[in-house]
């Protein structure tokens, strides 16, 4: 069915948010042009840990969004679209030290209180459920009903299902407003000018320059590692492992000597290939580029402490990505202030894979004048002053 409000739309950015928006708009019969400065999933989406998880969330808008995000993945998997790409599994949060136990216990209670299936496992149960786990753990909390998805594969599937051919290597140079400045008339690229009834900016770090958002968005680098296949060790891991320390290390870190600091939040995810994805750092600033031995050695030492069997397999590759974090820790999802047909969806930091599809669904609904399950009030871009499109 064709939307009553919208005939065509331009989506800027073919990461997970842009691809999801394009997919849900296409499903409504909207004619979509999907542009990317490079190629689909070329930035943060292609260097993500892929957690579709609420395990580390505290009650509040991000937890609510994550629960809806997980539900949408499950629905799209049941509908067949993501059947082979969404792996349902639990997250096991593991405390190795006493100081983590109290935090973890409170966290489990908060999750349960919010209706999340979280349970403190006895030592014996943990051992039985998770043979690969190191014996010397103090507490294990299983968070059920979560999953894992590889960001770039989700993007590829959404684009293919939309029937779109992405305009690659097509950076948008500016948005052209109508005379009264209330509508975006067209987007301009180096090669062309594209008119549209609606424009959705889902350009990650590239959104900053287009929307005057540089003061709101800041880059945060994450380093991740992938191992070779180890099927039998993989079979001994029914879900992802998350270090209890992760709960303490979220958010920005202030380092010594004025250097941008980094937190290491250890997550080990067994992949369907039999490989393991091991992450990661959270570093203020930084260039995507490469990995440093210091971070890699620390991540792997932590990983081996929790899953000793990892010591016997080989590291295949490392990679790093830069995600965009918003000053107040909440993403930007909604209409651009002062514009009737401009929207933004970005700033998810490490939650893009979990939240990208549900955010794209909400933006598509908003652009078509419909309601969505996700309450966008906390994520309204209008909460920041000075956000404006340079005419």
């Amino acid at each position: 069915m064709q939307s009553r409000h919208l005939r065509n739309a331009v989506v800027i950015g073919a990461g997970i948010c842009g691809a999801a928006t394009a997919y849900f708009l296409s499903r409504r019969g909207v004619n979509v042009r999907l542009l990317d400065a490079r190629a689909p999933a070329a930035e943060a989406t292609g260097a993500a840990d892929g957690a579709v998880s609420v395990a580390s969330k505290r009650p509040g808008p991000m937890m609510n969004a994550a629960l809806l995000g997980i539900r949408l993945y499950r629905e799209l998997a049941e509908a067949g679209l993501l059947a082979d790409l969404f792996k349902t599994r639990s997250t096991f949060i593991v405390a190795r030290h006493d100081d983590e136990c109290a935090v973890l216990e409170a966290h489990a209670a908060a999750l349960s209180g919010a209706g999340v299936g979280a349970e403190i496992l006895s030592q014996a149960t943990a051992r039985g459920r998770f043979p690969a786990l190191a014996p010397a753990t103090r507490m294990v909390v299983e968070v059920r009903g979560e999953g894992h998805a590889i960001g770039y594969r989700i993007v590829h599937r959404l684009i293919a299902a939309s029937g779109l051919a992405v305009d690659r290597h097509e950076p948008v140079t500016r948005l052209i407003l109508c005379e009264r400045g209330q509508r975006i008339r067209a987007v301009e690229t180096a090669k062309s000018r594209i008119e549209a009834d609606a424009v959705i900016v889902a350009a990650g770090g590239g959104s900053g320059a287009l929307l005057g958002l540089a003061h709101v968005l800041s880059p945060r680098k994450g380093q991740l590692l992938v191992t070779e296949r180890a099927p039998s060790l993989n079979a001994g891991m029914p879900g992802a492992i998350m270090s209890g320390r992760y709960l303490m290390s979220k958010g920005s870190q202030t380092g010594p000597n004025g250097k941008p600091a980094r937190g290491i939040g250890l997550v080990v995810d067994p992949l369907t290939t039999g490989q393991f994805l091991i992450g990661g750092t959270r570093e203020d600033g930084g260039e995507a580029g490469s990995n440093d031995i210091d971070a890699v050695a620390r991540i792997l030492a932590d990983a081996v402490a929790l899953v000793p069997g990892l010591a016997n397999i080989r590291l295949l590759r490392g990679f790093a990505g830069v995600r965009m974090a918003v000053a107040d820790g909440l993403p930007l999802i909604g209409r651009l202030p002062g514009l009737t047909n401009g929207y933004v969806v970005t700033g998810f930091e490490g939650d893009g894979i979990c939240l990208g599809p549900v955010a794209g669904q909400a933006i598509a609904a908003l652009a078509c004048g419909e309601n969505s399950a996700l309450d966008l009030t906390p994520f309204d871009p209008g909460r920041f002053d000075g956000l404006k499109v340079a005419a």
Partner: protein
Amino acid sequence: MTAPIFRFKGRAIPFRPGESVAAALDAAGVTLLGHDALGQANRYFCGIGACQNCVALIDGVVRETCLTLAAQGMVVVPMEDAGG
């Protein structure tokens, strides 16, 4: 003096000092070194450590047999029996 040997699938494989595990296995007529996690044959291929086709579990560590010098008493296990 008897020639030094290492073990591969229960067989004693003789080698000359300085010889790689791959060369000794080849001399013993072993061209199939095992199978990887996808069922592909592990075999000697490039000879310079680039292709990773000739890996086996050598004394508990995944190694290229072409880059590893054979040593007395070494145990070489095909990847399918590595238990990883």
